[in-house]
């Protein structure tokens, strides 16, 4: 169906199987995704399908063949910036979702401007350094009224039930098994990555529901 023919009725149809009271809250919500690799691309697609009105996506990387085993991209995306590829994917599912792209490396300096308008940010980086940076940023007074949903321990293919969502502080949650490391487990596999991304996206919905009460 061409996008230009979509109407308000189509909007209602796309989200008709979602929770109706939550639909209105999600339509107003702004959620950030810091890093759009395995965790971030899958969480972003889940949030678009859930009806989040605006997604702020940030990554400096391009899609590579080695990403396709777990990230929400396909062969036609290889070589494209992840921000451009993910925007295209989301628009093909939910053309009503507003996408704000930041084709940049997120640092301790720009994190506060890139995600300034987000109520909730999903941390989906792949390095310990970047993960640590954003956790510390959310403990800063400037972001104390926003929520961070981090991830730690997503490697391998051991039991799905080890993946948990825990609250670290007033405004920081962490999803994962807390122990599996790609350096020792040797692999990053789609099922566990998608389970963790699902935990992150679902926690975001819970927080948005609470924030807009």
């Amino acid at each position: 169906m061409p996008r230009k023919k979509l109407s308000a009725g189509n909007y209602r149809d796309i989200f008709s199987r979602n929770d109706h009271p939550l639909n209105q809250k999600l339509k107003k919500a702004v959620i950030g995704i810091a890093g759009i690799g395995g965790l971030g691309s899958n969480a972003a697609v889940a949030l678009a399908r859930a009806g989040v009105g605006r997604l702020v996506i940030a990554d400096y990387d391009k899609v590579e063949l080695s990403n396709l085993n777990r990230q929400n991209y396909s062969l036609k995306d290889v070589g494209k910036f992840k921000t451009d590829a993910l925007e295209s994917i989301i628009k093909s599912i939910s053309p009503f979702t507003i996408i704000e792209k930041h084709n940049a490396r997120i640092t301790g300096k720009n994190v506060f401007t890139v995600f300034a308008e987000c109520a909730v940010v999903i941390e989906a980086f792949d390095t310990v350094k970047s993960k640590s940076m954003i956790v510390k940023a959310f403990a800063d007074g400037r972001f104390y009224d926003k929520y961070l949903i981090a991830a730690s321990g997503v490697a391998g293919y051991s039991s799905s039930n080890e993946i948990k969502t825990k609250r670290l502080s007033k405004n920081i949650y962490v999803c994962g098994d807390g122990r599996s490391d790609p350096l020792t487990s040797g692999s990053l596999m789609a099922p566990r990555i998608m389970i963790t991304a699902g935990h992150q996206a679902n926690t975001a919905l819970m927080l948005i529901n609470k924030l807009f009460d």
Partner: protein
Amino acid sequence: MKITVELAGPLHVNGIDKKGTVELEDGSSVSLLLDKLGVRKEHAKYVSAFVNGKEIRLSSGLNDNDQVKLFLPLGGG
């Protein structure tokens, strides 16, 4: 003083009993706690410390009966 430590991540530590209790000299900082627990320097710089539910700097001092959560994120995503 006595504090309680909970590990939220893959930190390898020594000197914590089964209840998570650690004895420290009065006025010790989180950095001194990490030293006492044997946390390697290359890991310590990425650790976030939450004391009684609020994140504090590693240079901050601890108090008797504090509940300290130490978080070291794992890579991959």
